[in-house]
């Protein structure tokens, strides 16, 4: 299984899609918002956690549509489905690889981009922590959406419609956690709820996504 993860990471680096694309998009969002909102640093400070979270959410979507579709089109998915690796593990590994190439770099870049948005010093740690806890759920929910739309030819446009509403709880609690942390309030409750969503997604969605893939392969 570690082989599949290595192969996925190698492919995403060589194909040049996932890795730089999401990070670049995130960077552009964080740079554009101050230009649009204006130079009032007090306003930026208030909206910073929300902007970073929405940016991360949209950046995550960029590389999702091809998660299973390439494998479906070139026949790899048939071969993986008949291999000794359970399809649930395949989903889990692909979501992990997606997180490592999008969620993880976004999390690490967020505090740096937070500087552009004039985030409070106390907020750096919390934006990092909330993204670290929340982004695995984004990849996992996204993998479920990608599995559902694997047979749709223009799945790229259907996927965001399907996945973005499912991202709402993660966004609400993630941004709330970062906001409370930045304002010096206790962020424990939203963080616990955020972690709950992530663990719930990791525990249940591989099975749902594998079931969706099996149906598509028929």
């Amino acid at each position, binding site marked *: 299984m570690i*082989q*599949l993860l290595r*192969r996925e990471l*190698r*492919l995403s680096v*060589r*194909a040049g899609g996932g890795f730089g694309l999401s990070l670049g998009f995130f960077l552009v969002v964080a740079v554009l918002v101050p230009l649009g909102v204006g130079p009032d640093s007090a306003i930026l400070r208030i909206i910073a956690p929300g902007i970073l979270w929405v940016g991360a959410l949209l950046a995550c979507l960029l590389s999702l549509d091809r998660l299973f579709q390439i*494998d479906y089109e*070139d*026949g*790899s*998915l*048939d*071969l993986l*489905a*008949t*291999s*000794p*690796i359970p399809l649930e593990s395949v989903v889990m590994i692909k979501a992990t690889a997606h997180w490592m190439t999008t969620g993880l770099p976004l999390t690490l870049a967020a505090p740096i981009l937070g500087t552009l948005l004039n985030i409070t010093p106390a907020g750096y740690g919390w934006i990092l922590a909330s993204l670290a806890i929340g982004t695995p759920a984004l990849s996992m929910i996204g993998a479920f959406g990608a599995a559902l739309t694997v047979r749709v030819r223009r799945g790229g446009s259907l996927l965001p419609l399907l996945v973005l509403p499912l991202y709402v709880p993660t966004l609400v609690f993630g941004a709330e956690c970062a906001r409370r942390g930045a304002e010096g309030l206790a962020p424990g409750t939203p963080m616990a709820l955020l972690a709950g969503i992530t663990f719930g997604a990791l525990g249940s969605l591989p099975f749902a996504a594998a079931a969706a893939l099996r149906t598509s*392969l*028929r």
Partner: protein
Amino acid sequence: MLRVSDLACARGGFPVLEGVRFEIGPGEAILLRGPNGCGKTTLLRTIVGLQPQTAGAIAVDPDSIAYCGHLNGIKPMLTVAENLEFWAAVYSMRPIDQALEAFGISGLRDRLARNLSAGQCRRLGLARILVTGCPIWALDEPTVSLDADGIELFTRTMRGHLESGGSAIVATHSDLNTDARELDVAGFRVRAKAGTTFDRAFR
């Protein structure tokens, strides 16, 4: 090794085949014959477990079948060796050199798969079957886009596989020079509903 009894399968919701029965033992191969669209691929996909049967039973260990469909599942941005090593690691940890040798693509080892021709891709796809180490091969038109030399290499490899106690079920239109049994899939086609009731009434 593989026993299929009274199998019925459907494609896209339409029943295609019914009453399929055959058995393959060690060292045996069976060639699925029949015109285009008669259900050879559907039968193979059902046997390897990619789609459920609508009736009947398939007695086989699912982990003992290696499947090779119309598509080769090759990643264009990986080299030939990387493509093959992945499947070797997933299945058996067998060395890949022998498989590359068997299909005459040892020289392409470090070439990116996107630079391969269709025939070379097919050879790589078939070499994958060899590194799985599975005793049963389920191959869907394995000789498509192979040249005469490639077909010769394939028949030799398959003969070696059968001699070492393996078995194979192959959907093909070409003559593979083996003494394998042939199964005419067209004979199991589902008749139109009205036709069957008519037959039964007047029998």
